């Protein structure tokens, strides 16, 4: 997949754990793991909004595109 999810980088920048993020955005750690490992087929706008809100960033900071 050419869309890369950079949640790991943002988590490191914010010094936040995966469990904490999952709890704050209201998804299960298993689903966050799917997202982090780029196994996700799609992401809901509501989830992206919450991610941006919690990690204090823009969607472009979380999502990247590689050819």
């Amino acid at each position, binding site marked *: 997949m050419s869309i890369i999810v950079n949640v790991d980088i943002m988590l490191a920048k914010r010094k936040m754990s995966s469990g904490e993020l999952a709890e704050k955005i209201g*998804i299960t750690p298993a*689903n*966050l793991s*799917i*997202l982090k490992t780029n*196994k*996700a*087929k*799609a*992401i*809901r706008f509501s*989830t992206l909004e919450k991610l941006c809100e919690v990690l204090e960033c823009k969607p472009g900071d979380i999502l990247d595109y590689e050819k």
Partner: protein
Amino acid sequence: MKILGEKSLSSKVEKGLKILFLIIVLLDIIALGITCTSAFFEFNSLSVRENFIIRIILEALIGFVVLLTGIVALFIINQFIKIFKNLKQNKLFEKDNSKYLNKISVMSIVIGSLYFIIFIGTSIFLKYFNLIDILSNFLLKILILVFSVSFLIFGIGIKILNCIYIKAIEYKKENDFTI
């Protein structure tokens, strides 16, 4: 009424299919016995009869095809049992179910084709070569044709349903991986 899970419609259908499976096995064994004994007696009694060897061979061939379709039908029922077993265990959108449906469609088309060959063979081939028409009964011919077409349509229908089922599995997977 519950469709999936234990004590549901699926589990009852599964039990029914298991009983049907046993009944068909018994009927196949009885049919095999009757066919063999009648062929044996006919072979012994009809010593002077026009084309009687051809008749017996063709009858045996048709009997063989009918028994073969019976075994294939058992295979189809077995696949249905597996599908309903999965439904009983709440395994709805499984790849296995799609495999079973595919096998059912192929086997149904095989049965339909075999009966169609019997119909064509007895109707056209035998008359063309001026042999005895074994299935001389018109109603029996129509019955075989209806049987053949029904199985062919059933097989094609299941094939289409399987394609829809595969799409549903894909959508489910996509939905599961949507965060």
